[in-house]
């Protein structure tokens, strides 16, 4: 398959505007601005079937369509580059290697929704990426792709970087807006949805880096072309961030619907050191774990949902037979406790209780009743909070108990892991 987003990813200076242009970049922009009305672009993206790549998989065109047409308020476009779901590292690569592909998408999206101000909210740790974007934005202003009257079209857009401060919850769209507003980044209750009441109380669209990076290609080749790639309801390609116990970890751009088996064995080179596969987290740590017998599952939004998991961000974490699933779940519980913003009591207290109980099981002090206690706590957290962080915190616990209950029981009875990871840092 021909790559779309990663076509030029190995070109050393693809991040420079001249190279990007030489390789076909900034051809979609004049086409979008001069040959299409914003409504036509929204229709084209709806037709493409492009679904949000940040994790939720919401149809991008539909999201744009929610922006009220008659609102006199200024509109904002936000690019969510707060990539923080453990296991995910695709946006970082897109930003560092091909920043103009993203910026071209941002300008197109801003035009489609009528926004004259856009921000890229990038996680604070991504210093290199932020600098690269700053340079790329500077190049765009010089060339007239940003600023007033872009390419003589009469459309104005100002784009700037907003750097985060190490809070996972800011990847949640309403937290992200609170963060830019300079408040403590606690999520907002929805509705109202950002499309109507978003940044500074104005209509706002928030799209992920990978979603926006697809736009120039959809404009150039048409919505039907994109809809023909991948799966009928999960169109296009997806960048899978493959990590863990595979021979060749990395980002792989493959058609939606590729099997987990192909991803791990053909692209990832199989399991390290000839060991056996034990489990896979297919979409970042907040998605349900799959067992080794699920490798035939197709990697797309609907197929993974039917298989009892989620595509999430496409972060595929592969674990071999030496991995203790209780240890994995415990580590994830520490993450969610740390990242809970504290706004909702079930999440604030619940993530701490989960971590405490997981910790005592992991450290040989678990009690027989702990498994049911964990399940009870999880049932009282899920669906009872403002944002989905808590739902994500529950999933690794409930899904590892469901699939690997024997390991929890072993841990509690024998006060140790069933298996040992061994020395991995050499």
């Amino acid at each position, binding site marked *: 398959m021909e790559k779309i987003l990663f076509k030029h990813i190995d070109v050393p200076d693809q991040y420079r505007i001249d190279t990007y242009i030489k390789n076909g970049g900034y051809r979609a922009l004049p086409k979008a601005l001069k040959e299409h009305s914003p409504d036509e672009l929204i229709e084209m993206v709806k037709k493409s079937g492009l679904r949000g790549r940040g994790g939720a998989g919401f149809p991008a065109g539909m999201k744009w369509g929610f922006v009220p047409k008659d609102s006199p308020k200024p509109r904002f476009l936000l690019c969510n580059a707060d*990539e*923080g*779901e*453990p*296991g*995910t*590292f695709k*946006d*970082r690569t897109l930003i560092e290697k091909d920043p103009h592909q993203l910026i071209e998408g941002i300008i197109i999206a801003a035009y489609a929704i009528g926004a004259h101000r856009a921000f890229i909210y990038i*996680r*604070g*740790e*991504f*210093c*290199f990426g932020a600098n690269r974007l700053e340079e790329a934005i500077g190049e765009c202003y010089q060339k007239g792709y940003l600023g007033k009257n872009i390419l003589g079209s009469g459309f104005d857009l100002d784009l*700037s970087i*907003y*750097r*985060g*401060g*190490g*809070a*996972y919850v800011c990847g949640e769209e309403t937290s992200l807006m609170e*963060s*830019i*507003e*300079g*408040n*403590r*980044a606690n999520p907002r209750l929805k509705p109202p949805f950002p499309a109507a009441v978003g940044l*500074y109380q104005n209509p706002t669209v928030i799209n992920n880096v990978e979603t926006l990076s697809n736009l120039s290609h959809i404009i150039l080749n048409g919505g039907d072309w994109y809809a023909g790639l991948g799966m009928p309801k999960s169109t296009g390609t997806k960048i899978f*961030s*493959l*990590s*863990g*116990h595979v021979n060749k*970890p*990395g*980002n792989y751009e493959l058609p939606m619907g590729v099997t987990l088996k192909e991803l791990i064995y053909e692209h990832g080179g199989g399991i390290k050191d000839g060991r056996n596969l034990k489990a896979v*987290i297919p979409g970042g*740590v907040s998605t349900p774990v799959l067992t080794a017998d699920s490798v035939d599952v197709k990697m797309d939004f609907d197929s993974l949902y039917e298989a009892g998991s989620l595509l999430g961000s496409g*972060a595929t*974490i592969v*674990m071999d037979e030496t*991995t203790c699933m209780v*240890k*994995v779940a415990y*580590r*994830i519980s520490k*993450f969610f406790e*740390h*990242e809970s*913003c504290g706004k909702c009591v079930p999440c604030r207290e619940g993530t701490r209780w989960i971590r405490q109980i997981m910790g005592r099981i992991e450290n040989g002090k678990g009690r027989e009743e702990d498994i049911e206690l964990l399940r009870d706590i999880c049932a009282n957290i899920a669906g009872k909070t403002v944002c989905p962080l808590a739902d994500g915190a529950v999933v690794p616990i409930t899904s590892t108990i469901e699939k690997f209950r024997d390991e929890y029981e072993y841990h509690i009875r024998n006060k140790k892991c069933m298996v040992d*990871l061994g*020395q*991995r*840092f*050499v």
Partner: protein
Amino acid sequence: MLSETAQKRIAELKGKFPKKRSAILPAMHVVLEEVGFYNRDTLEQVADILGLSEMEVAETLSFYTYFPKEGVGKYHIQICTNVSCMLAGGEQLKAYLEEKLGIKVGQTTPDGLFTLTEVECLGSCGTAPVMQINQKYYENLTRAKVDEILAALREGKEI
């Protein structure tokens, strides 16, 4: 205390956003770049320049973990031990650094050179295990690489 350049850069952030408070995080990034840490004085200065109260700045800042306080070492080593790094020996990397530096996570070496912090996912899972030192990522770490990096930093060289 903030340098003239830092003060100027923060002042330039004023008026860039529809709300004054939006400039807090960008200002803290300036503080981090120019000073490397913050303390009560810098917060007061940031608040004064932005026309906010010190409490407003502190309120927002305390939500975030990325900005180190005064007392942080010259080299702030942040180690990821989240799942992908853990599977690649992230916890063993942590133990190795603790041993090499003679400090525990959360501490600073007596010479003020290194601070060790355990952090959540750095978004570098395909090149695990990974650590961030100040602004820079160090990936696919091995014992030999860590030795080399620490030796270079001790001599004040960037690597």
